[in-house]
């Protein structure tokens, strides 16, 4: 018996080395496969940047920095004039207003879902919010065009114009007339579209707050509001900001829904009830029938959006790092 076992052990010895070799090789190949996957993404990103720059080059050399400061968009002229100020303004304004609406509402929903909502209702509520994220943007566009737009023109916009239009300084922002296709409507649709991102992420990070912290706060007599303000939000700030930035990224780049309802006008009037355009809406509208310098100008717009989004994400990273430093983590 013992001899047989010994013989088996001897026979197994080289096997073990072989098996280890297999592990090593599979480890190495796994390492290279994952590294390849990561490098592919980098190569794609680089390729996109390079092709954008190549496509935008004629416009870049023709217009230079004037592209950023010109409001006029007249690609059909013999000497075309193209400026990105209108689209940049529209992109920033719609995203800003959308965030102004969506962040408090989205975080509010998340607080309700994690702290206040009766447990049996939490799942259905959360599901409903997440379903919002699954609706294709063209549906939002059509809904905004056929349902929300007419509603806003008859109710919300006139009320806002009446309330704020007469005030000094801010009056210009709320100047009439009401319009079915406007920056305001586009921002509102954007707010609805990005709401699920903010809510879903905030809810997930709120759920990570250790119950013991909250219970301690409740134990010393805190109200729900005080617990949320002084325990939940500070504990999860980084995660919430991350969700907000993700939503902002989506708002900046959203195309189809915005193209439907923003009015596609390159003029800047200063009023949020006037039609405008965004970078992505301008590209979506004009790319198919463009050629030559016009197309190059549109690609340059795309490059600008790329830079803009990158800048926003970089700023978010920086903000997060400073928050983390402040918290001493």
């Amino acid at each position, binding site marked *: 018996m013992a001899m047989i076992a010994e013989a088996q052990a001897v026979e197994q010895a080289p096997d073990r080395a072989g098996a280890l070799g297999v592990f090593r090789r599979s480890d190495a190949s796994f390492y290279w496969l994952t590294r390849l996957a990561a490098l592919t993404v980098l190569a794609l990103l680089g390729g996109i940047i390079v092709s954008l720059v190549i496509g935008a080059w004629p416009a870049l050399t023709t217009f230079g920095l004037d592209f950023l400061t010109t409001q006029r968009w*007249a690609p059909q002229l013999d000497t075309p004039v193209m400026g990105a100020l209108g689209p940049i303004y529209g992109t920033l304004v719609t995203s800003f207003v959308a965030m102004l609406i969506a962040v408090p509402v989205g975080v509010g929903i998340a607080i309700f879902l994690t702290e206040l909502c009766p447990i049996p209702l939490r799942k259905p509520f959360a599901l409903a919010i997440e379903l919002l994220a699954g609706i294709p943007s063209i549906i939002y566009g059509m809904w905004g065009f056929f349902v929300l737009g007419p509603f806003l023109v008859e109710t919300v916009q006139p009320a806002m114009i009446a309330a704020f239009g007469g005030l000094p300084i801010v009056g210009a922002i709320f100047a009439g007339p009401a319009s079915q296709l406007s920056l305001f409507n586009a921002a509102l649709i954007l707010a609805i579209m990005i709401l699920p991102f903010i809510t879903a992420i905030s809810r997930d990070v709120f759920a990570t707050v250790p119950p013991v912290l909250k219970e301690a706060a409740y134990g010393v007599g805190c109200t729900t509001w005080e617990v949320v303000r002084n325990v939940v939000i500070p504990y999860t700030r980084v995660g919430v900001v991350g969700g907000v930035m993700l939503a902002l990224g989506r708002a900046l780049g959203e195309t189809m829904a915005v*193209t439907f309802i923003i009015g596609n006008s390159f003029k800047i009037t200063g009023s949020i009830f006037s039609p405008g355009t965004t970078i992505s809406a301008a590209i979506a509208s004009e790319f*198919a029938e463009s050629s030559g310098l016009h197309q190059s100008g549109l690609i340059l717009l795309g490059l600008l959006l790329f830079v803009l989004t990158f800048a926003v994400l970089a700023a978010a990273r920086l903000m997060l790092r400073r928050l983390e430093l402040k918290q001493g983590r």
Partner: protein
Amino acid sequence: MMKTMIRTGALAIAGAGFAVAALAADLTGAGATFPYPIYSKWADAYKKETGVGLNYQSIGSGAGIKQIQSKTVVFGATDAPLKADQLDKDGLVQWPMVMGAIVPVVNLDGVKPGELTLDGATLADIYLGKVTKWDAPAIAKLNPAVKLPAADIAVVRRSDGSGTTFNFTDYLAKVSPDWQSKVGAGTAVEWPVGVGAKGNEGVAGNVAQTKNAIGYVEYAYAKQNNLTHAALVNAAGKTVQPTMAAFQAAAANADWAKAPGYRVILTNQPGEASWPITAATFILMHKKPADKAAAAEALKFFAWSFEKGGKMAEELDYIPMPASVVTLVKATWDKDIASK
């Protein structure tokens, strides 16, 4: 499990391969979106008769021109015709395939289709932002019998580049020196006023929803959406309604034979019955096609469409080319396209 999946996958790939092979026998074309409904209707009927299908990508005139230049398709289609020197440079032949008409549409309480009359100069002034009220003297003078509201005109125009815009702005440029100098004609122009909506359907939807709005759409969209179209004063000074007869009159009065590459823009044509904003849409093919058999098949399809497609075109509110023009075009094919 894995094996079944692989097998299904292999089958699917094989299936896709067959599908590609089947498509390869089809005619390929790309370009203008405006004639897409009639091209696909013709293609359906043609396939039933001959078994030869058409794969037409309605990706826009500009993109269609690019595709035919790079020879990825057998024919390109464009709403804005190329100039003769451009055709020569790329070795292309161009001819008109079918026509359409563009009508101004309005949304005014109590105004029925055809009741409102506009002339070119007034239309241009509205789109320039010089006439801003519906009861402005310029409009009131043309419409003594119509009760016009004292409301702002909500101007609606296309936001995307389009052949519709090209023909509309071309008309405005012809009738208004002011428009010519300030805006000009093009598939996408620098609009002084108004909101932009995407596609004919976008403009139609917008005008239908907005009180006191004015827009311009292909005739078919005005008809199908029951929009209130306006009558126009034509080059001869006569007020005309958008009817098939008026569109055909515009085409018949055009001088096709003398225009190189049939580059006739049918706006503001002479003739008492002519509708002023009529437009042809064009086909582009190479003089020396790389694939002669495919080019010959394409020409067969176009000849069939000219012969038997007229009624189908009228059903979709397009205007068939007059017989005289078809004869000219066929002579051009024989002369210029080396398909044999």
